[in-house]
């Protein structure tokens, strides 16, 4: 496992240009929403001293007064976000196709990246959507009953600590099953890209690989997932606690986003390393 993780990281660093491309695509989506937020603020408090106050740091009272006076100020943003998410997920299938195939072929050619992105788009889309549905079902099955009955459960338990422990327990089960699904999803795509079998055969092989090496693959998923979360946490923490120029802060945060993309590439590469071994 550690060997695959190390190799994965090495490969991901070598393919940093692809990660940079993904960063740029995300940046475009970010700019669309960022522009709308800027417009909303301009129109509501742009010419108020409250805007000056707000621009120096988040002031909840200013935000509340703004929301009350301009309840629709952020409605464009709210409408755009779901569209952005769907659009990005659709595009990210293409990016993943290019990324996975480039890593498999160990070639850093842009041509190969785009060619294979197009070539694998629909098979990867089908695989991706199937697993997305499975993840959704898993989430609903595990979390909805717990959260819907939270008050009744807490009032029937002798200790609220037990309730939190039950959340942790469900959380651990969730991560373990989620890792299985995500690993199987990636392995299916790797199988498809490596062996060019049918989607169904790739799905079968993806699950088969994942079950066969469940423990190390789960370890890889948790390692990279945790690393990605750590980068997210520190990004938010540094951004909110250290006072620095907004542009410097922006660049630093972009770097954290970039590292998270590299981590995801490393995760793919590590799984591929295992797949090759199988």
């Amino acid at each position: 496992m550690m060997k695959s993780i190390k190799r994965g990281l090495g490969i991901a660093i070598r393919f940093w240009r692809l990660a940079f491309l993904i960063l740029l695509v995300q940046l475009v989506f970010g700019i669309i929403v960022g522009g709308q937020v800027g417009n909303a603020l301009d129109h509501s408090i742009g010419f108020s001293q409250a805007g000056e106050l707000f621009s120096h740091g988040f002031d909840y009272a200013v935000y509340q007064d703004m929301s009350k006076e301009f309840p629709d100020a952020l409605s464009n943003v709210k409408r755009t976000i779901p569209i952005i998410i769907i659009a990005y997920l659709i595009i990210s299938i293409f990016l993943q196709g290019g990324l996975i195939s480039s890593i498999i072929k160990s070639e850093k050619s842009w041509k190969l990246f785009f060619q294979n992105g197009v070539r694998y788009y629909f098979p990867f889309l089908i695989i991706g959507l199937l697993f997305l549905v499975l993840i959704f079902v898993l989430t609903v099955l595990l979390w909805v009953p717990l959260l819907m009955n939270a008050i009744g459960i807490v009032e029937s338990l002798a200790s609220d600590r037990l309730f939190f422990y039950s959340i942790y327990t469900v959380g651990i089960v969730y991560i373990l099953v989620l890792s299985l699904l995500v690993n199987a999803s990636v392995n299916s795509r790797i199988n498809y890209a490596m062996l060019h079998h049918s989607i169904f055969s790739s799905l079968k092989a993806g699950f088969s690989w994942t079950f066969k090496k469940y423990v190390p693959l789960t370890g890889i998923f948790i390692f990279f997932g945790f690393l990605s979360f750590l980068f997210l946490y520190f990004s938010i923490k540094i951004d909110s606690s250290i006072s620095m120029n907004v542009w410097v802060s922006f660049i630093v945060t972009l770097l954290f986003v970039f590292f998270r993309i590299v981590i995801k590439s490393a995760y793919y590469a590590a799984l591929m390393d295992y797949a090759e071994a199988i």
Partner: protein
Amino acid sequence: MTSVMCKLSISQCTPLNEIQSVRIADYEMNVVLDHDKKMATGTSIITWRNPSPNSVKELKMYMYLNSFKNMKSTWLRGTDGEVFGRQIADRAPEEWGFVTIDSISVMDGQDLTSNIKYVQADGNLDDESVLSVPLNRSVRPGDSIVLMLKFRSKLPKTIARSGYGENNFHLFVHWYPKLGVYEQNKEGIWGWNCHQFMQRTEFYGNFGKYDMTITCDDSFTVGASGCLIEESSTDDLQTVRYLAEDVIDFAWCVSPELEVYEDLWEDVYIRLLVPRDHRGMADRYMMATKHALQYFDEHLGRYPYPGITIMDPPFHSLRNGFMEYPTFATAGTIYGMPGWFKGSESLAIHEFAHQFFMGVLANNEKEEAWLDEGFVTYYEDRIMEAYYGQHTSQLDVFGIKYGNSALSRQEYVSMRDHSSTAIARPGWEITGDYKGIVYSKTATMLKTLENYISVEKMDEMMRSYFDEYKFSHPRTSTFVNHADRFLKSSFSQSEVDIYMNLIKACLFGSDTVDYYVEHIEENVVTLNNKGALSMPVDIELITITNDTIIQKWDGASPKTIETGDTISSVHIDPQEKLYLDLNLNNNSLKIEKSSFSRYILKTITSVQHALQSLSFFL
């Protein structure tokens, strides 16, 4: 700063042995708790002194536990079967509660048991929350009557406040036959003030001495109003005796889960009862209580009791939390409460502050709740901000900050409808956002008044109010007259008129204020007010040559200001004194737009982080 908590001898809470109030009703009760049946059975000796110039032929008693007897009570009829988000109508028979008098007699032997009957001012014959006790012989002015009762109090599975929960948690509040208040009404006519238990109303009682003996399982931790003065145990049972003097009520709890933390603030004994799961909060509660004691001592008056007990219920019994009783308050929290959220401290301080407003200044919580809830919220905000930061007292995480005063103001200004927000009304007359009106509008009004008259004058006014009316039952008119007198002694008549207009408009009316800058045109600026309430404010004008001009505006009618130079910005009330203003953002206008690059850039990277997180699973 951390609190050092140590185990102290129980004698640290010593009754003062001095009479601070006019004691009208004294109670000597002796009860035994059967925790399997959730019932306290016992006796009560009530001594009542007639404070009126009339002979009294009937007594009236609160029997509030009967409000949880079934769905027919006036209190539960007002709920549509749902309390705190939970349906309660279909509960098992043993989960309901009641209080019943098995016998009642006068000390001289007259048996009154057959005389007693439930009375209902609202015509709901199924409501048994008020009991009438006709006397065979009237009580003459200044005379006393001693009643001897045998009664049973069966707790409901908690619906609201009083009740039992898991693992033998019991909270006994508004639990015993308790006399109403015989007093003069607003028209000066003597009679019983003893309302049925209704939604959005709390409690009202006479000052007196409570001598309370409780026998219960030896494994339970007992918490109660007053001081523990005796304890003994035999055969798995413990007997504790509490004495609470110059208080208007008595509450107690038992639970095997509660741990005891004790400390002193000067000579006041603080007793915290915290469930094992909430150990991490003990130090935070203790500090919050000490902060509150210190702050009140410096800004309002001396805490007049020898001790205070704060009980944090286990989470399964959170419905029992967040309530005030004399020298006993309930708080509430969850396991692992993060340090950046101070909601539990804020609520603990709120409930503690009721010791002053409700406990000592014992207003009628049913008819004029603002006199306690409003003042308590105002002081809660002040205390929280003094010790935890003006802008961070509620929340301080990842750059998002929120202070108590801002929260109170928001609760008021963000109400959907301001057309019926008069504060000084009985609870049952207030429809809509009760908290926004009674708690938050009052606190914001008081904060506005403080901003105008200065914190020092506010303290002076409140100190004299406390000194003059402590251990009495102040009414709205008491405070209004006091404020009028105080302000007249400190300010000019025109200023007094402005401040009294603010107080009266908020208490008795629904007028709002929302100043705004209509437009700037070169060297002319127009100001207006969307509301009907007005207060004088400063106007700060800055010209393009960077000159600052300060002008006054009474806010009563639109104002146009013309300057010799082009105006670059205008700010109404730049110090935000008029905190009641419904929208502070439109109080200013400038010709240059602010830059929001910080938010635009943050949004960009946040979107990127979110997309990256989502795509990790695809």
